C-alpha cells in the first residue's frame, strides 16, 4: 500500500486512490487550511492558503524536499511523498496569506452571519498573525442584493476564492455568477438581468467560506452557536439528500446539505433547502379529535385513541376487506410497518395501499449546457418523484399484501361500497387526495386521518391524529436507489402533535417507547427485502438494501 509521510507520520492510502496533499493530511489527522479547493470543483490553487512543503522519500531513505512551497490542493501524493505542514516556512506563508486576505476585509464579525462557522475566523485564529499592519484605507465595495432571489452578497467580505463562480459553471452549468474587474478591485456579480436563481443556487452560500454570499432566508435570523444540529434526510424527492436540521428552541432555522457520497454528494436543491416552511405552518394539526355525527366528542390523546380503537373494532372488523389503510410515501418504514400490522390485526384481510405518489415532470439533471440541456457527466439530479420513501413503503406493502395497491383503486372500491372504513397516514404537505375525490370520502362509515396539515379531508374525518413532520421524528427513508438512511428527531413539533411512530406504537398496544433502531431490527427479521436495515444503526451515510443480498426482487408488483 502506498505510504505518505505527513509531518513525520506515515499513513497508508489506497493503491488506486488519487489524493492531494490536503486529503492525505486529513487522513493523518492534520489540517492543511484551504479556501478555494473543494473536492467537487476544479482545482484553481488561487487562494494560496494550502501552501506546504512537499518532497520525496527515495527508496534508499533519503528525503529530497522541493525548494519552493507548493499548493497542497494541486499536488497529488504517491508512495513516498513527504508533506510538511508545520515548518517555519509553511507557518510564515500561512500568516502571510491570512494577512493579505484580511487586508481589505471589513471588521464585520459582530454583524456577519458567518461568524461562528467562518473559514476566515477559524484559520486566522489558528494560523494568522493576530494583528493588522495596514495603515491605508481599505477598498470599499457595494453590497449586492440583486445576486439572486435567495442570495445576497456582501461584496467587501469576499476573499475571491471563486468557489461560487465555479459552482455555477461546473455543477449547475447555468453560469450566472462571474468575476468582474481586475486585481484588487475584483468583485463577484451576476450578468445584469440574469440573477442566480437556478434550482441549485443556495449551495453557493454553503460554499462561500466567509460571510460574503448569504442566504436571504436565514439572514440575521440566528447566531449559529445557538443552533443545534441533527442529521436527517430531505423528504422533497427520491434523491434523498443527506442534510442537517439546524434549530434552536424547537424553531427550525435552516437546512444544510451533508456530505454523503452514497446519496447525493455534497449539495442539495433549493426546493428542499427552502421548501420546509410548511413545518411551521399555522395549518399544522395540533389537536387529536374524535367526532361523532359531526360533533367533536374528545380532544385529548387518551380519549381519542381509546375511542378510535373502539370505532375500528365496531366498524372495520365485521366484513372481510372492508377496512383499508393508505400509507403515504412520506411515511417512514417503521410507520408503514406499524400501521400495516395494526390494520391486519384489526381485520386480517384489510387492504393496504400506497398513498398518492406526486410526480413533477422529469428528473432534472445538472449541469446544463448553454442551451439548457443536461450535459454529461451528471453531477446532481433533482428527481421527479416528490416523496422520500416510496421504496420503503412499497417494501412493507409488498410483504404484508403481496403487492402494492394504488390509492385510486381504494377510492374506486369506496365508491363501489366495497370499502367503508379508511385509515390514511398522510405526511405530504401538498396533500394526499384530489379535490374532485373528496366527495367519495363521504361514503365512508369511518375515516381516520393521521396527517400533518389541516385539510378538507381532516375536517370530515371521525378521527384526526396530528402527526409530525420528518424533522420531528426518528425513522428510515429509502431513496431511489435503495439507500436506507436514518432521519432523526431534530426538534419537537407543535404542542399537541406527536411523532407518527409513537401514535401507531400505542395504537398497537405495544409497551415501552417507540425506538427506531430496535424496530429496524424487528423489521429486518420479518421483511427479507429490508434485511439490510437490521443493524439498527444506519450510520451517517445509510445502508444500501442491495448490500444484504436478499433473494426478494426489489421491484414490487403494482396492482392497479
Amino acid at each position, binding site marked *: 500500500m502506498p505510504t505518505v509521510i505527513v509531518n513525520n507520520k506515515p499513513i497508508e492510502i489506497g493503491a488506486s486512490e488519487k489524493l492531494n496533499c490536503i486529503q492525505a493530511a486529513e487522513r493523518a489527522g492534520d489540517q492543511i487550511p484551504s479556501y478555494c479547493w473543494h473536492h467537487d470543483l476544479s482545482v484553481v490553487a488561487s487562494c494560496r492558503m494550502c501552501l506546504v512543503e512537499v518532497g520525496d522519500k527515495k527508496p534508499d531513505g533519503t528525503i529530497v524536499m522541493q525548494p519552493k512551497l507548493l499548493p497542497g490542493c494541486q499536488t497529488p501524493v504517491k508512495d513516498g511523498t513527504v508533506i510538511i505542514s508545520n515548518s517555519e516556512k509553511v507557518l*510564515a506563508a500561512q500568516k502571510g496569506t491570512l494577512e*493579505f486576505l484580511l487586508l481589505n476585509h471589513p471588521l464585520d464579525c459582530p454583524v456577519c452571519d458567518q461568524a461562528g462557522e467562518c473559514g476566515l475566523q477559524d484559520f486566522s485564529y489558528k494560523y494568522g498573525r493576530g494583528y493588522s499592519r495596514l*495603515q491605508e484605507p481599505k477598498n470599499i465595495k457595494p453590497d449586492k442584493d440583486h445576486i439572486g432571489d435567495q442570495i445576497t452578497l456582501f461584496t467587501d467580505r469576499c476573499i475571491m476564492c471563486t468557489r461560487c463562480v465555479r459552482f455555477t459553471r461546473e455543477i449547475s452549468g447555468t453560469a450566472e455568477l462571474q468575476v468582474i474587474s481586475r486585481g484588487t478591485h475584483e468583485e463577484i456579480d451576476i450578468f445584469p438581468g440574469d440573477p442566480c436563481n437556478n434550482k441549485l443556487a443556495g449551495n453557493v452560500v454553503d460554499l462561500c467560506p466567509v460571510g460574503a454570499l448569504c442566504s436571504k432566508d436565514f439572514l440575521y435570523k440566528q447566531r449559529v452557536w445557538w443552533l443545534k444540529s441533527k442529521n436527517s434526510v430531505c423528504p422533497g424527492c427520491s434523491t434523498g439528500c443527506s442534510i442537517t436540521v439546524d434549530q434552536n428552541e424547537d424553531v427550525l432555522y435552516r437546512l444544510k446539505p451533508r456530505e454523503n457520497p452514497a446519496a447525493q454528494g455534497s449539495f442539495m436543491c433549493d426546493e428542499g433547502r427552502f421548501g420546509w416552511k410548511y413545518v411551521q405552518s399555522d395549518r399544522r394539526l395540533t389537536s387529536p379529535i374524535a367526532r361523532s355525527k359531526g360533533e367533536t366528542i374528545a380532544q385529548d390523546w387518551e380519549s381519542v385513541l381509546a375511542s378510535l380503537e373502539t370505532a375500528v373494532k365496531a366498524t372495520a372488523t365485521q366484513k372481510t376487506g372492508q377496512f383499508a389503510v393508505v400509507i403515504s410515501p412520506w411515511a417512514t418504514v417503521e410507520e408503514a410497518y406499524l400501521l400495516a400490522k395494526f390494520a391486519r390485526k384489526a381485520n386480517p384481510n384489510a387492504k393496504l395501499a400506497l398513498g398518492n405518489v406526486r410526480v413533477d415532470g422529469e428528473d432534472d439533471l445538472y449541469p446544463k449546457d448553454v442551451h439548457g440541456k443536461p450535459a454529461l457527466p451528471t453531477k446532481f439530479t433533482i428527481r421527479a418523484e416528490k416523496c422520500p420513501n416510496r421504496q420503503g413503503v412499497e417494501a412493507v406493502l409488498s410483504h404484508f399484501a403481496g403487492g402494492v395497491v394504488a390509492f385510486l383503486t381504494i377510492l374506486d372500491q369506496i365508491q363501489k361500497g366495497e370499502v367503508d372504513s379508511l385509515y390514511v397516514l398522510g405526511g405530504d404537505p401538498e396533500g394526499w387526495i384530489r379535490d374532485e375525490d373528496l366527495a367519495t370520502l363521504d361514503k365512508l362509515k369511518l375515516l381516520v386521518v393521521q396527517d400533518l396539515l389541516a385539510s378538507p379531508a381532516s375536517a370530515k374525518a371521525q378521527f384526526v391524529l396530528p402527526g409530525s413532520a420528518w424533522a420531528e421524528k426518528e425513522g428510515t427513508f429509502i431513496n431511489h436507489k435503495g439507500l436506507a438512511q436514518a432521519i432523526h428527531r431534530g426538534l419537537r413539533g407543535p404542542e399537541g402533535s406527536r411523532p407518527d411512530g409513537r401514535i401507531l406504537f400505542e395504537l398497537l398496544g405495544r409497551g415501552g417507547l417507540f425506538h427506531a433502531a430496535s424496530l429496524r431490527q424487528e423489521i429486518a427479521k420479518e421483511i427479507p427485502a429490508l434485511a439490510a436495515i437490521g443493524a439498527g444503526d444506519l450510520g451517517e451515510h445509510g445502508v444500501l438494501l442491495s448490500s444484504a443480498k436478499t433473494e426478494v426482487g426489489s421491484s414490487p408488483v403494482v396492482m392497479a
Partner: protein
Amino acid sequence: MSTFEPTLLARIGKPDCQLLETYQRDGGYEGFKKALGMAPVDVVNLVKDSGLRGRGGAGFPTGLKWTFLPKDHSGPIYLAINADESEPATFNNRILMEMDPHQVLEGIAISCYAIKSQKAYIYLRYEYGRSYRALKKAIEECYAAGLFGKNIHGSGFDLDVVLHRGAAAYICGEETGLIESLEGKRAWPRIKPPFPAIEGLFRKPTIVNNIETMACVKQILDRGADWFKSMGVPPDPKNPRDAGSYGPKLYCISGHVNKPGCVELPMGVTVRELIDEHGGGVWKGRKAKAVVPGGISMGFLSADELDLPLDFNGPGKAGCLGLGTAAITVIDDQTSMVDVLFNCARFFAHESCGQCTPCREGTAWMHKILTRIRLGEGQLRDLDLLNEVASSMGIIPGTTICGLSDGAAWPIKNAIKKFRSEFEEYIQTGRKSVKPSEALMVAH
C-alpha cells in the same frame, strides 16, 4: 569595442523593407525552404545546438522547450507567438514587427515546421497598431505567394497564421495568461503543471515563443548554429545550470539618455557601454543614479554596478531578478527614487490579474504605502514593511501562480536595499511630491 554588424536589425530603415519582394531579394524565406528540406527534428536540434535562449524575459533554452512537446501526438500542436510586449521600457519587438515583419514571419514558419505545428497564433498587443498593419499585410503577401497555406513549396507542410489582437493587459504577456486570453477568457494564468507544451492553447500541446526569438530562429537557419554561438558569453564554469548567453541581442535604451533607441549587440555588453557608447551618455550632463537592467520587473542597479555584463547571468550577481527583456532605463541623479518606485508599484497594482491572494493584495498594498510615503506621510517602519510584504509574494517563495508577483516585489526590495538612505531622507523630511495631481496617482 569594434562596431558590430547587425543581423536582426540589418534591414531596418532600408527602402520598402517591409515588402515581401525586397525581403526575398535579400534572401528571405531561403531559410524556411532549407528547413522544409530537413527533418523537423533536425531543425529542433539545430536550434538547440545554437544555444538560443528565449528573448521574452525568462531565458529558457528554445530548442529544449521544443522537445517538451509529446512525441507522436495526434495534434493539433500550436505555436503561440507572444507579441504582447508590455514590460515597461521594452520596445525591441515593436521595431522588428513594424520594420521587418517578414523576418519574424519566416522565423514563425520555420518554428512551426520544426515543432510540427500547422497553426500559429500571433497574440499582438492592441497598442501596436503599426505592427498590426505591417504584419497583416505581410501575412497576406505570404498567403498570396504560397508561403503560407496548403502544401507549401510542395513539401506537404500546411501552415496557417492568425493575427489576434490583445486588449491592453500586461498579464497577457505571461504565457498561460496569453493562452487564456486567446481562448476568450479572463487572462488568469494557469496553474502548472500541466505546462503549455503538454496542455496549452485549447488544451493542446503548445509552444509559446517571443518575437525576437523567432527572428533569431530565422537567422540561425540562414547562418548556422556556429555563427550564433560565435558571439556572446559561454557558460559560467562555476554554475552547472548556466546554458550560456549566445547570439546577438536587441538592447533597448531609454530614460535619461541623449539617444534612446534599440541597438543590436552580442550578448554580454555592459550597462556602461550601452549608455555611453550607444545611448549617447546620460542627458543634460548629469550622472546616472540608477539603471533598470531589463524592464522594471528586474529591479535596479546602483551607479557603481554599471560594469555588469548584460547576459543571462550578469544582473543576478547584483541582486536583480535577471536579464529580463534586456531593456535598460537610465535614471539620473536629479530624480527621486521614491517617484520611480511609486511608478513601478502603481504599474503592478494596475496590472495584477487578481487571481491569487499575495499578488492581488500585495501589489495594491505596496502601491498604497508608497502613495502615502509620496504624499509626505511615510514612516521609517514603512520601509521594513514594504520589504516584508515584497518578500512574501512571488514564485520564488512559491506563493503565487505566476511571476508578475516576483516582478512587483523585486524593484521594491532592490530600491529599498540600494537606496535606503534616500528613502529615509524623503520620509524624515516629510517631502511631498507635488506633481502630478492625486487623481493621476490611482492604479486603476
